[in-house]
């Protein structure tokens, strides 16, 4: 009897599988997937290919393949001895440093406050949590003008710190809201055992909790990094209006990549293919990072969604 049902189930399964594989709608599915694929990466490919053209080529035949392929645009931007190289590498350094520092501070501050809320049995714990959660209601957009004024009065306009600190502040709500339940879910017995062994809460935090909370920290860290890497409005106010010059060796790290790409477009509007090459190169670090971290970004986004 039992085997009979199992067998029949297996047969049904097999039939279903067959049906799924040879379903008439399958080519249709691939067609739609290919169209979606073309639409989503077509524009990107257009710009990358554009970087391999000369301007006359682009005017004659903007929609086709480059003929012949020209490496000069990319070569000039990647050569530190041209006027473009120091701009490009400087902006990569600025974007990377600002994003990494933002991420480090957000994760460190976020995980420690989440630990305190989750585990210290504070009377003010729930209040503290609500204060941070309330921050979710305040989008950075509406605070941009006063933030700019405050940064001006403390001389942080035109500095990396002027971008990093407000970014950390506005990333904290999401971080705390994601990390607090995450830390609450770590078994309490671990802490009790540690405290019996004479470990203080601070010791427990550094030696046991941080390693255990790593997956949660990676998730919020990736979100903070993405936010900082793509940020436009805050750097626009702080770095462009500040107009400070941040030289790092031969490189000019005064602005982040988004600002740099935009400035490049205005400054060199006569050479569209150069803009395309610059834009393409500016995409690469992000694309590598995001494709490598895809799982974490998706987890973070759906985690943030589930709240």
């Amino acid at each position, binding site marked *: 009897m039992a085997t009979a049902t199992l067998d029949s189930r297996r047969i049904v399964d097999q039939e279903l599988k067959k049906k799924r594989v040879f379903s008439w709608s399958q080519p249709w599915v691939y067609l739609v997937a290919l169209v979606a694929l073309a639409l*989503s990466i077509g524009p990107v490919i*257009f710009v990358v290919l554009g970087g391999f053209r000369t301007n006359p080529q682009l005017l004659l035949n903007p929609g086709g393949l480059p003929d012949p392929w020209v490496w000069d645009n990319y070569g000039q931007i990647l050569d530190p001895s041209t006027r473009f190289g120091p701009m490009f590498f400087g902006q990569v350094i600025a974007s990377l440093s600002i994003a990494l520092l933002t991420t480090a501070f957000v994760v460190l501050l976020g995980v420690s406050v989440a630990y305190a809320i989750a585990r210290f049995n504070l009377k003010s714990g729930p209040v503290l949590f609500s204060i941070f959660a309330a921050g979710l209601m305040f989008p950075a957009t509406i605070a941009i003008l006063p933030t700019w004024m405050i940064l001006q009065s403390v001389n942080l306009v035109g500095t990396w710190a002027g971008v990093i600190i407000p970014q950390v502040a506005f990333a904290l709500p999401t971080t705390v809201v994601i990390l607090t339940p995450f830390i609450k879910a770590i078994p309490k017995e671990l802490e009790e055992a540690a405290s019996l062994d004479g470990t203080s809460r601070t010791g427990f935090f550094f030696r046991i909790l941080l390693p255990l909370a790593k997956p949660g920290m990676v998730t919020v860290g990736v979100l903070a990094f993405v936010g900082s890497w793509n940020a436009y409005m805050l750097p626009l106010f702080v770095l462009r209006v500040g107009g400070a010059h941040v030289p790092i060796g031969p490189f000019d790290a005064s602005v982040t990549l988004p600002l740099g790409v935009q400035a490049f477009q205005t400054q060199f509007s006569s050479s569209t293919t150069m803009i395309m090459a610059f834009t393409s190169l500016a995409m690469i670090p992000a*694309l590598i990072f995001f494709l490598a971290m895809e799982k974490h970004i998706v987890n973070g986004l759906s985690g943030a*969604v589930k709240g």
Partner: protein
Amino acid sequence: MSNPVVTVDPRVAKATRGSTPNASKAKRARRWRERLEVIGFTGPALLVFVLFVFVPIGYAIVLSLFDGTPTAPIRNFVGFQNFTEIFTTGRGETLGQPWFWNAVRNNFIIAAMSLLIQGPIAIGVALLLNRKMKFRGFFRLMIFVPYVLSEVITGVIFSLMLSPQGALNDWLTRLGFEQFTNFMWLMDTSAAPADAGFFSILGSRTFWAMFAILTWKYVGLAIILFLAGLSGVPEELNEAAAIDGASWWQTQRKITIPLLGPTIRIWAFLSLIGSFQLFDMVWILTGQQPGRTGLHTMATFMVDQGMNRNRVGFGSAIAIVLFVITLIIALTYQKFILSRDIGKES
């Protein structure tokens, strides 16, 4: 509330009394240590958060009551004059500048169209990509690409493609749609004049181009969220429905989409809030001058006034109105739509 009945075990009491000096000293030291720990763990985060989130927002309220400039933000107290200017003379008469109500209209239209157009597209693609197929991982990854590019890069890519000599016009010519070419895709000024009708924006090619670009950029996020939601729908349900003879589409419509409901509602919430905060893409695609094409959103109008025209007070007043509108929408949405899911989950 009754007084708690305290029972003290005499032995314990005696024992504690006996060891008073040392024990209480140690206890006090421990308590201090714990207090320090609390301060150390929560202090820095709280400080940064309060100083750079709550203080700016409080400061925005102060600024909005003055007619200040970036160098002298708190001069010329004007009371609520900035707000009355937003709501009364906002249309047309504000120093010949773009108008607040058109910005509000644009935000609402973009929000509504995002839900009505991006939502169904994303659900459709997500359902397809959820089927068993070859290269599924690759397709998913590629659809995610637009979302990971920054708004600036997206803006530059499309401003190059849509330029008069750009690829779009070239492709249209090749496909035989020459009558559609040589549009100034990103410079259609038909909706800009003050006397253009309230819904003239729907006739603006630039508006539609921008909406298409926004869709390109953000539909990937929706698809990814829906795919994550779909992975939680048990396979057995689909199989059971297939055994009962349900077609693929029937299964999706009657089983999968309803089960995806909570994810869809959360996405719609994110999309709504995002539509009202919209700044980057509009600012870049319109060459930092959304007013020329009548495409201002509340956020671009705020930055235009506050930064480019040095009207920090007026800009802050716009920020506060934007905040109140967003808050009302968020709370209403949570009360009437999201509350279902929250009740169900717990």
